[in-house]
Structure formats: structure tokens, C-alpha cells
């Protein structure tokens, strides 16, 4: 390939045009002549940005993941195995054990655990680790005996500090289900235990109460019969006698109805205690073959053709059974305290529904969970989903999605519309439904969301992206990337490229978006596309750094399904940004392209930096559809930002408004001060003028200011007269000269406003601004009505607005307070 590059002939005019046309054809139509450097169509591309991030450890692989026992201590949360082993080694060191060899091989143990035979998403941590350690030891079979012994000692020390309980979770398509089950058990364990304890207490008390009632009863028939002996039975009816005998002194037996009620309640409570022992952590409604999960009983799995349709009925039926217990608990409590009033309580318990239950009671019950694929939810099952989310029943819908680019139709992405509707968004539109959107590549964040989900009593949707393991391809072999790590990168780039965003929407948290919506945890939430600094080598082999923004296209390039949207172009077809020739579009990096792509796409072909097998950077141009999809994700992310209050437009506007108000207030204050100073100055000048005219010397003798003031007074006199003339009602207040032209400036430069009436297009703008200042003549064309009836600011504004540019504001009157220097400058700009 390098030879080919070297032998490439220099760019000639014709060839340049050919390349440009071929690239453009591919960009617009997704087809065109083959490119010499383009890898085979089934081989995914390896974007340079993704490579750089992996090299930097930005997207560190976090599996396997250790989940402690759900009922265990609170402070021991789930952790990546790498961290668990690190801590165990630390403890070994503190105990004085040697850990030198293990420290350098920690990653290998993690790797061996990751390479365990994961047929199921989780397995007991002890057995996985045991096997991994054994294989680790075996791998040193060639070493010297002394070294092996030393290593075995270190491993033995480590083994003592490794967790005996808990499970390891692998990067597996069903891992979200395991995490959900874990969160659920952990979150609801306490509630279930307390409910059970309460049931046990009530039933014990009821039992005692009923037993003592039996004792309180006078003499029962058996006892009488026994006392009378065999002969007695022939003479007397023991049962009839028993009924006739009074109860024991000082006590009263239970009324038959009450006793019956208590017995019934006791029976229900006992049944529950029996059933509770066998109840699964949740009921999973699914379609197709059942998911194989460790620890999930068969009765927990309910297969249905349309699980979403079946879910509400299933829930109601399940609740019907549970309601019996809850009703029995209430009756038992009332009976024990002797407060049961049949007139009141009978009616209440007749209407007893699941909505009457307390939150804790509902949390103690195993929830109904529906497992669906995101593809089906986006298509055929959408209306069912909507019904469930609007039903207010606490049904949890888990949707696993292997491709965040999947369209609503459920088919594989049709990028022709460039619009990918969001299922999470749709669910949020149900307003009172809990929505979790997450991805398996962020297990910590996902667990946090699942923890909230397990506590919620609202109908809820959890949309979780599980990147599907792609088959090994030559590219992967070349990059030495195992297939699950490849899918990890795929998922991670989709997450960073804003295609698989994470958020929670929890209606129970408050009434405002700020309380309900949480977008934290996404990389660089404040920017539209996260940007990373990636190291690379330039043509001369020097180390350089490059800021790269991740987009949807980076994720799509890794996915063989979207390979047809990219084409690697040869070096000689590159065009630099800013290079324009003969109306042809330029080539542009996708980040820059998206920055400019607001309403209309820039006239350029976007490309992506990818690495070939020699790790040489290449440009991969993409189709218009792919670019549009990238833009769509950017816009979708912007909306999410807005909802989360990040770079909020309302805040920006409020800030701008406040700033403007502040500026205006300061300006007004400054104006007022100036006006005050001007007024004071004018008063002083008039006093001195009067003094001069009347011959009374106001100023001290010999003041140099006096003669100049006299001159000033003389100069002002004619101007005053002129101003008075222009206000003469007979002249119509117009300052237009007889010829229709502008009034000549006065000696002191003062110029009256005027209008080129003949050019007025009668648009009403000035008349609406101030009908006293402007008026229409007989031909409905504007002229100045009374120049003194409006401010200078209005004149300038009218002149600026005038579409015919026929208003001339002249110069301001001396007394006009609106004639700020800024206003005068605006007027001059108009005349200029």
C-alpha cells in the first residue's frame, strides 16, 4: 500500500476532477466507482479517535464486575474485578505478604477471569476466581521451580483475601437483567423482610387471641362428654348441653361472625407466609425462548405472545392474591386492637384495591417485569407500551437494544430521513412514568439508575443498550482486538458520540424538570460532542496531539452493518479545508461539518480519520445520510441538555435581559446626572446674562467670562427666533423649504428634520410611531406634522425604520434630553 502511495502520480487537473466527482457521487448517492484504498466492504473501520481513546485508557473496559450479596453490607457496593483484586493485594501487603509478582500480572488475572466460559451473564465469584488463579499459575509452567513456588505463595495469600461470596458479571447481552435483579433484591429486601415480620407478628397474635377464646368458652361438648363417661352420652346430648351452659365467669366469648373473620384472616396470613418463601424476586414476562439467568425459577418466567398486552392483566391477577393478605393484615390489626366495626369496615374492605396499599407494602411485593426488545417497542408493540406506561400500574418494562441507530420502524436504520426518533423521549412524554436510559458500557451509572428503578412505583421503562459482540473480522485481527472488546468500543463510542445517552427521568422526585431529569454521567455533558485529546504521529514521525470530537459516525464506522456508509479515499483525493475549486464541495472533518450544519448542510463532503493496518491515518468520507444522522443525534442531545438545564436558552435570555436592564439603568442614571449638571449650568448662565443686560454686575469685576457670555447670548438670539418661526401654526410646522428640499442649516449648524415626501411609500411605520410628529398629506404620503411634538430619539427611530429611507432627522434641539451622543451618531450614520 505504501508503494502505491509513493507511486501515486501528482494531481493533475482531470484526475482531481474525477476524484472529486466520485467522492461527491458517493456522498450524495452512496455509490460510485471503487476507491483503491478502500478496505473490503465487510471489514469495519477503526477511527483514529477511538484508537487514541483506547490507548489513553479513557474508555477502560470495566468487566468482569463483582456484585456482592444483595442482602450484604451497604458499604460494599459493586466494583470492577480489577479494583477488587487491587484492594486484595493492598491488604496482602499490609499483612506483610509478598505481592511483587502478582502486582505486575494483575491485568492478566482479570483477563483470564474475563476469558472464563461465560455461558451465562453471571457466575459465583469464588469459582471463577479460583479457576482464573489456577490458569494463571499453570501459565507459568515453564518457569523455574523456585519462581513457581514463590508465585504460588503469593497467589495463596491473595486467595485468602478474595471475596468468597457474591457473583461476577461478564460483558454479556443479558448482564442488564442480572444487574436489575440484583438492584431489585437489594432495594426491596428490607421492605419484604419487614412485611414478612409484620405478617408473622399478626398471625401469632391472632392465633393467641383465637386460642384464648376457645379456652374462655364455657365447656365444650367433647369435654362434657368425656366428663360424663360412656353412659352419660346415652342420657344427655353433650353438644346441646354445651350450648346451654354459660361461659366462664368474668369473660365473654367471641361473636361467631367475628371469630369467623379472624379465622379467615389468619388463614390468609398463613398462606402468604407459605407462599412468600417460594416467591421469586420478580415475575418476568417475555416472548420467545426464556432468558437463562442463574437463580431465576421457572415460575418467575411467564411466556406470552404479547407480553406487554398481558402485563396489566397479569399484574391485576397477582395483586388480587396479594390484596387478600394485605386485607387480612388490616383486619387482623383491627381485631387485635378490638376496633373492627362491621358497619364501617365491611364496606371499606369490600372496596379495597391495590391503590389503597402503602408504598412500603407495594415495594415488598415482587414486581411484574416485561422483557422486550427495543426494536419491537419502537414498532409493533409501541401502543402496548404506551398503554402500560399510562396505566399507573407499577410494571417495569426492560428493553434491551443492541443498536442505538435502530429506527422506530424496528427495521435496521434507514438513514434516508436522517431522523432517529428516541424511545426514551417518547416514554417521558407519558409524564408520570419512570424512564431510565443507560448502556452496559457504563455499568456503575447503569446500576445507579437500576437502583432508582427498583424503588419506583410508577410504570417504568428502562432502555438499555447492550452492544452486540461482532464477529471477529480481519480488521480486528490486525488490531488485536478481541470481539467483545470490539463491541465494548462500539458501545463506548456510541455512548460518547451521543447515540447512546444515559439519563433518568423520575416523576416521584418533584414537579420540575430540574428535579425529575438527570443527565449527569454522560461524558462532557456541557458540550455538544465530547472532545478528547488524542496523540498521533505526523508524517515525519513526530508525536503530536489532536483534539477530536466523537460523533455518531465514529460508532457507526466500527459497526459492520453501517460500513457501506463510509469509503476510504486515496491520499491524492484529499482536499484541504478552505480549498475551493470550480464550485466543487470541499472535504471537511465531521466535527467541523456538524458545527456548520444547522439548517442547511455545508457545501462540503464530511470525512472521518481512520487508521489502516499500518496505523496510517486515512480519510473515510461518509454518505449524506450518515452525516444527517450525526446531526440528528447532536440535535437530540441539545434538547436533552435543554431539559437538564445545561446551556439553557431561557437562562441565557434572562441573563441578557438582566444585563440590558442594568445597562439601561446605569445609562439613565448617568443621563440624569448630566441633565442635573446641565440645568445648574444653564441657571448660572441666565443669572449672569440677566446681570449683564440689567447692568447689575453679578460676576466679580474683571471676570473674563462676562464678555464671552454676552457674545454667546447675542449668537443664540436669532436661533431662538428661527425655532419660534418653525413652530408657527400657519406654516404647518413643516421645516421643508418651498422647493420641497431640506431646510438650510442655521448659522450655528442647527438643521430641522424633514421628509422627502415624494418618496414615501405610505407604509404607516412613522405614523404609528408618533401620529403627532408625523402625518400624511392629501396623497397619503408622510410629512412632518410638528417637529416639536416628538423627541429626537423618535425621529431617529422613524428614520431608521423607514423602508423608503426618506426621513431625515436633522440635528437635535438643544433642550431635547433624548439627543444622546449615541443617538446623534445614529442619525449621522443615516445621513452618511
Amino acid at each position, binding site marked *: 500500500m505504501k508503494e502505491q502511495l509513493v507511486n501515486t502520480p501528482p494531481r493533475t487537473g482531470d484526475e482531481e476532477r474525477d476524484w472529486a466527482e466520485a467522492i461527491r457521487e458517493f456522498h450524495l448517492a452512496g455509490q460510485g466507482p471503487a476507491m483503491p484504498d478502500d478496505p473490503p466492504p465487510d471489514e469495519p473501520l477503526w477511527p483514529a479517535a477511538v484508537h487514541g481513546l483506547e490507548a489513553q485508557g479513557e474508555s477502560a473496559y470495566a468487566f468482569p464486575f463483582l456484585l456482592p450479596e444483595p442482602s450484604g453490607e451497604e458499604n460494599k457496593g459493586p466494583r470492577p474485578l480489577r479494583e477488587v483484586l487491587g484492594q486484595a493485594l493492598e491488604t496482602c501487603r499490609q499483612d506483610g505478604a509478598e505481592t511483587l509478582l502478582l502486582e505486575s500480572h494483575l491485568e492478566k488475572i482479570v483477563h483470564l477471569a474475563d476469558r472464563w466460559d461465560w455461558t451465562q451473564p453471571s457466575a459465583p465469584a469464588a469459582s471463577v476466581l479460583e479457576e482464573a488463579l489456577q490458569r494463571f499459575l499453570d501459565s507459568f509452567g515453564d518457569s523455574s521451580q523456585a519462581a513457581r513456588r514463590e508465585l504460588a505463595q503469593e497467589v495463596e495469600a491473595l486467595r485468602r483475601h478474595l471475596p468468597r461470596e457474591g457473583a461476577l458479571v461478564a460483558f454479556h447481552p443479558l448482564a442488564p437483567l442480572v444487574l436489575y435483579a440484583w438492584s431489585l433484591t437489594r432495594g426491596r429486601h428490607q421492605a419484604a423482610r419487614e412485611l414478612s415480620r409484620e405478617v408473622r407478628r399478626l398471625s401469632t397474635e391472632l392465633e393467641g387471641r383465637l386460642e384464648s377464646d376457645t379456652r374462655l368458652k364455657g365447656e365444650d361438648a367433647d369435654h362434657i362428654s368425656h366428663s360424663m363417661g360412656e353412659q352419660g352420652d346415652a342420657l344427655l346430648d353433650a353438644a346441646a348441653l354445651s350450648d346451654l351452659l354459660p361461659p366462664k365467669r368474668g369473660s365473654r366469648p367471641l361473636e361467631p361472625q367475628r371469630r369467623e373473620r379472624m379465622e379467615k384472616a389468619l388463614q390468609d396470613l398463613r398462606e402468604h407466609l407459605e407462599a412468600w418463601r417460594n416467591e421469586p424476586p420478580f415475575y418476568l414476562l417475555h416472548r420467545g425462548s426464556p432468558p437463562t439467568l442463574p437463580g431465576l425459577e421457572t415460575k418467575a418466567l411467564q411466556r406470552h405472545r404479547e407480553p406487554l398486552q398481558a402485563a396489566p392483566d397479569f399484574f391485576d391477577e397477582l395483586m388480587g392474591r396479594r390484596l387478600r393478605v394485605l386485607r387480612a393484615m388490616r383486619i387482623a390489626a383491627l381485631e387485635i386492637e378490638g376496633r373492627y366495626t362491621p358497619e364501617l369496615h365491611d364496606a371499606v374492605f369490600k372496596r379495597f384495591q391495590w391503590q389503597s396499599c402503602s408504598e412500603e407494602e407495594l415495594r415488598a411485593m415482587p414486581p411484574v417485569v416485561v422483557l422486550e426488545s427495543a426494536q419491537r417497542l419502537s414498532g409493533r408493540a409501541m401502543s402496548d407500551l404506551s398503554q402500560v406506561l399510562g396505566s399507573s400500574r407499577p410494571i417495569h418494562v426492560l428493553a434491551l437494544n443492541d443498536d442505538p441507530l435502530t429506527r422506530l420502524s424496528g427495521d435496521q436504520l434507514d438513514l434516508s430521513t436522517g431522523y432517529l426518533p428516541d424511545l426514551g423521549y417518547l416514554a417521558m412524554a407519558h409524564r408520570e412514568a419512570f424512564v431510565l436510559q443507560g448502556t452496559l458500557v457504563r455499568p456503575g451509572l447503569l446500576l445507579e439508575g437500576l437502583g432508582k428503578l427498583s424503588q419506583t412505583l410508577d410504570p417504568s421503562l428502562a432502555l438499555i443498550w447492550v452492544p452486540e459482540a461482532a464477529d471477529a473480522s480481519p480488521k480486528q485481527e490486525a488490531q488485536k482486538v478481541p470481539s467483545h472488546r470490539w463491541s465494548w468500543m462500539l458501545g463506548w463510542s456510541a455512548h460518547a458520540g451521543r447515540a447512546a445517552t444515559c439519563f433518568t427521568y423520575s416523576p416521584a422526585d418533584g414537579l420540575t424538570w430540574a428535579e425529575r431529569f438527570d443527565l449527569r454521567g454522560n461524558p462532557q455533558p456541557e458540550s455538544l460532542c465530547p472532545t478528547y485529546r488524542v496523540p498521533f504521529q505526523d508524517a515525519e514521525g513526530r508525536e503530536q496531539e489532536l483534539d477530536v470530537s466523537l460523533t455518531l459516525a465514529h460508532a457507526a464506522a466500527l459497526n459492520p452493518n453501517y460500513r457501506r456508509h463510509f469509503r476510504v479515499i486515496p491520499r491524492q483525493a484529499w482536499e484541504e479545508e478552505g480549498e475551493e475549486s470550480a464550485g466543487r464541495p470541499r472535504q471537511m472533518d465531521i466535527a467541523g461539518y456538524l458545527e456548520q450544519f444547522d439548517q442547511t448542510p455545508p457545501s462540503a463532503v464530511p470525512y472521518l480519520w481512520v487508521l489502516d493496518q499500518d496505523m496510517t491515518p486515512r480519510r473515510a468520507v461518509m454518505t449524506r445520510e450518515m452525516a444527517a444522522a450525526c446531526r440528528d443525534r447532536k440535535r437530540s442531545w441539545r434538547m436533552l441538555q435543554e431539559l437538564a438545564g445545561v446551556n439553557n436558552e431561557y437562562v441565557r435570555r434572562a441573563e441578557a435581559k438582566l444585563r440590558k436592564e442594568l445597562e439601561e439603568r446605569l445609562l439613565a442614571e448617568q443621563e440624569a446626572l448630566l441633565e442635573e449638571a446641565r440645568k445648574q449650568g444653564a441657571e448660572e448662565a441666565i443669572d449672569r446674562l440677566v446681570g449683564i443686560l440689567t447692568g447689575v454686575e453679578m460676576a466679580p469685576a474683571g471676570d473674563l467670562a462676562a464678555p464671552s457670555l454676552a457674545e454667546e447670548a447675542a449668537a443664540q438670539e436669532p436661533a431662538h427666533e428661527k425655532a419660534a418661526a418653525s413652530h408657527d401654526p400657519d406654516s404647518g410646522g413643516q421645516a421643508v423649504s418651498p422647493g420641497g428640499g431640506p431646510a438650510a442649516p442655521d448659522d450655528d449648524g442647527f438643521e430641522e428634520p424633514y421628509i422627502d415626501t415624494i418618496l414615501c*411609500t405610505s407604509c404607516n411605520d412613522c405614523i404609528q410611531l408618533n401620529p403627532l410628529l408625523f402625518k400624511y398629506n392629501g*396623497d397619503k404620503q408622510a410629512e412632518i406634522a410638528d417637529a416639536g411634538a416628538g423627541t429626537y430619539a423618535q425621529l431617529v427611530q422613524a428614520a431608521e425604520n423607514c423602508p423608503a429611507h426618506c426621513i431625515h432627522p436633522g440635528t437635535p434641539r438643544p433642550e431635547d434630553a433624548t439627543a444622546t451622543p449615541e443617538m446623534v451618531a445614529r442619525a449621522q450614520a443615516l445621513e452618511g
Partner: protein
Amino acid sequence: YCAAEPRWCPGCGDHSVLNAVQRLARQRQMPPEQTVVVSGIGCSSRFPHYMKTYGFHGLHGRALPVACGVRSRRPDLNLFVVTGDGDCCAIGMGHWVHAMRYNMDMTILLLDNHIYGLTKKQTSPTTGKGSVSNTHPQGSFFVPLNPITLALGISNVSFVAQTVDWNPPHVYATIQAAHEHKGTSFVRIFQRCPHFTHDVFAEAQKDPSQVLMMTHEDGIQLAPEAAKLFKNQTEHDPSDLQEAREIASHEELFPIGLFYRNPQAERYENASVAGMGMSPQEKLTALERALDRFTI
């Protein structure tokens, strides 16, 4: 003649045309009950609402058939047709060509702002090549239609003029000449749309030398103080159809004035008014006689 308060945007060129028509109506003392303004659909077609005369706000592109109908039975009315570039040159193209050919006495005012304004910026037939609109976000692909060259090519054309809305004296003088002409007077008015095509005419408005004014003793007569605004003038005889076509095809300038006038062109209403003034009985007899000709 002023009716409802115009609801066009501030700065819209339509105001200027409305004012000119109202002035003309007042000047000529046109009886409101004998004046009709017909329009199609578009911003400009709101015109009849603002005239205190009879009016017909018709269907999109169908102003001219309505006007022809009015004229065919009412030769006594003052008839104005107000239409836009979309209304006349796109959907109403067929009607326009035949109305021009029929040459019935009416004044057609084509208010051309180069865009569909009422429906918020879609490319119209006169939108310039490369202009960005909602239907052509990358710019219009085609060379725009030139309504003047087209009008000058229609058989039996009798009056074609052009003006710019930002010069009210010229608008008035042109509409006045058009109204005085007996036959179909076609006046295209370059009209600014401050909202969607504010930049199309801005340069020409600022710099009058981009406007070429045609002068002639038989052309549009403008007062000297208004005429002196146009630095760029040319003498053009309105009876010279060939030269008219040449001037009309000027792409870089805005030619204004009278391109062509032919008072001798035949008018269809001379035929269509036959039978007016007959009593119903006479009409019935004439009808039966006509039908009898088909009797076998």
C-alpha cells in the same frame, strides 16, 4: 377609497402600490360601486380588502378568469387585477397567457417580490438563481422566469410596463398610464418583501443607477423632480416590440417604464358584450333560434 387597515408587514412594498391605486381612484373620481379589484391568493392578493370598492378575493391563480368574466358582461366598470409572482406566473400561468391574448380592458398589477411570502418563503418562478428558500435550501437551481419577455411574446399583447415600488411617483404614473390604456395593461412591479427577500432589491434601492428608466413621449410621463432621481435613462419607443424585448432581457439592471403599447390590438369584450341590453324575451328568442340551428 381606504377600507380596512392594511395588514402587510411594515416596510412592505405593497403599501406603495395600494396608495398609488387609491390616489388614482380619487384623482379619477372612480365611483366605488363601479370599481372592482380582483385578486388571487398571496400577500398582494389581500389588496381588495383594503380598497373601499367592490372586490373579489378569488382562488389561487384564478384572478384573471374572474376578471375576464367580470369584464365580459360589465364594460362599464373600472377593473383592476392584483396578483403576485406565484399567483400569476406559476399556478395561474395558463390563465395569464390567454387573458393577455384576449386583451380585455383591465389593469393587471403583478406584484413581484420573487418569493412566496404568505406561505413563508418558498421558491417562486421569479426567484433568482441561487436564492435560498425553504424549498431550495441550497439555493434555487434554475434561471428565473422573466414575466416581461414572456408577456411581450404573447400574441395580441397591448400594454406591458414595469416599475419599482420604492419610487411612488413612478408607480403612480405607470398605473395611471395602464388604467388609461384600453385593453389588458400588464404592469409588473418589483416589490420589496422586508421579511424574506429584503436583500434582493436593497442595492437597487440604495443605488438608483441600477435602475434603467425608459423615457419617451408616448411612454410613462414623470415629473422632472421625480425623473431626476434616475441617473440611468434610455429613450425607448413603446411601439418598438423588438427593442422592448432586448431591454426586457437585461439581467443586470431593473428596466422601468413602458415597454410596449399597441392601442390597435383586438379586444375580446367587443364580442362578449353582444346581446347586452336585450330584454329577457329577446334573449330567449335568440337562444331558441341558435338552438334551432342544431335541429335535425
